C-alpha cells in the first residue's frame, strides 16, 4: 500500500470505532461516516497533505463513495503538486 493510501486510512480510522478494519472497497457510509464526517475527513486530508480539495456536500452524487475513491482523489492532487 502506498503512502497516500496509508495516510487516508489512518485519517479515516480516527472516525470509525477502534480496531475496525478499513478496506479500499469499503463505502464511507457503511463505515458510519456521514456527510459532516466526510467534510471533517477532507479538512484533515487537506491539512495533512497541504492541498485544496473541491468538495460540496450538496452535490447530489457523492464524489467520494468508497475509501478507494478518496485515495485516488488525494493521490491525483498530491501527485499533481510540483
Amino acid at each position, binding site marked *: 500500500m502506498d503512502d497516500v493510501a496509508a495516510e487516508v486510512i489512518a485519517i479515516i480510522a480516527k472516525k470509525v470505532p477502534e480496531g475496525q478494519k478499513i478496506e479500499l472497497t469499503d463505502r464511507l457510509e457503511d463505515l458510519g461516516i456521514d456527510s459532516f464526517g466526510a467534510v471533517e475527513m*477532507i479538512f484533515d486530508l487537506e491539512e495533512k497533505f497541504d492541498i485544496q480539495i473541491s*468538495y*460540496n*456536500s*450538496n452535490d447530489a452524487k457523492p464524489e467520494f463513495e468508497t475509501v478507494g475513491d478518496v485515495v485516488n482523489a488525494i493521490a491525483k492532487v498530491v501527485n499533481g503538486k510540483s
Partner: protein
Amino acid sequence: MADRVVVTGWGVVSSIGHTAASYWSNLARGVSGVADARIIPTDQLAQKIVAEVKNFDPRAHLDDRQVTMLDRVSQFAVVAAREAIAQSGLAFDEALSERTATIIGTGVGGQNTQDDNYKRLYRDNAKRLHPLTIPKLMVNAPASQVSMQCGLRGPCFAVASACASATHAIGLAFQMVRSGAATCAVTGGADACITFGTMKGWEAMRVMAPDACRPFSRDRKGLVLGEGAAVLVLESAEHARARSAEILGEVVGFGMSSDAYDLTSPDEGGMVRALTGALTDGGLAATDIQYVNAHGTGTMANDETETKAIKRTFGTHAAELAISSNKSMVGHALGAAGGLELVATLMAMREKTVPPTINYLGPDPACDLDYVPNEARPLEIDAALSNSFAFGGLNAVLAVRRWPGSARPTR
C-alpha cells in the same frame, strides 16, 4: 388578560433594498441581491458570491460619533428600528417607553469589529485595540443600540439562536405583549456576517453554493450568505386601536422546539413540533393556512427535511400550500433571516402576492410541493407561517393572520 398582538411598523435593511418598501418591491419582482462580494477581498475565497447590503452609507443615518461606536450589525439594526417606529407613528413618552420591550436577535454579532481587530492583533502585531472593541462586538450591542437610539426603557435583551435568532426574538416579544408584560415591542434581527473570517468558516462547512441559491430546486448546491436587518413594532391590539394606528397584520402563534439530535443536520421531528406548536398556539387548523414562508436555505438536507416536515404537519393540505423561500433572493442573513422573512410574510398577506422562489431549475423528487417557482403569484392569504430552523437543532415558527381591513384593496 391576554391581548391580541398586532404589527404596526416594519423596517428593513437588505441586499435588495434599504427600506421595507424597496425590499418588498424587489422581492415581489424576483430580484436577486446576490453578487460577488465587494466589502471584503475575495481572492482567497472558494465562494465569492454573497447577498451584501450594497452602498450602505452609515453617515446618511448616524452622526460621526455614532458611526464609530456602532458595528455594521448595530447600524443595520438601528436604521431598521427607526424606520419601523416611524411607520408605527408611536411616540415614546416616559410611561410608554418603560412599557416597550426591545428584543433583537443576532446570530454572530459584531463580526466586522472582531475580524478587523483580531487581524490588527494577529497579523499586523498591533500593540493595542480600540477601547470600543468589546462593546461593539458583543452580541447584545444591536439590542442596546436600538434601545438607546430610540429611547426604549423597558425589557431589552438579545436572542442568539443562529439562523432562528430573529424568529425567537419576535416570538418572545409576541409572548410579552400578549401576556401584558409589555404594551409594545421593537423586535427583529440583524447580522453583518460577511467578513473574511466568517466566510472562511462557512466555506469549511462545504455547504456554500458557487453560483446561486436555489431552494427546493433540483441541482441546488447550498446556501449563499447574506446580511441585513429587519425590525417590527408589535403592539397590543387595544393600544393600537385606541390611537387609531394603521394595523399591518396580526401575530397569533409561536412554536419552538429543539431537536436534541445533531449540531448541523436538520430533524423532521423537531421541525414538525415547532410547526404544530405555532398552529396550536395560534388557534389555527392546518387548513387555515394558505402560505408558508419556508426556511429554504438551498441545501440538500434542509429543503428535503423541511418538505417532509410540512407534509407531516399539513397532511393532504400540504399540496394546497404556496411555499416560497426569500433566501433565493436575499441569501441567508442568519440572525436577520427570520425578521426579513416575517416582514415578507406579512407583506405577502397585505399585498395579496406571494414572493417567488427564484433560481428554480425544476423539481427534485424529494421536494414535491408548490414552491412558487421563479414568478410571484397573486393569492388571498388569511393566515401564514414563517419558518426558521437553526444550526444547533433550534426551531422556531411564527403564525400570522390578516387583520380585517389591513389588506390593500384588490386592484
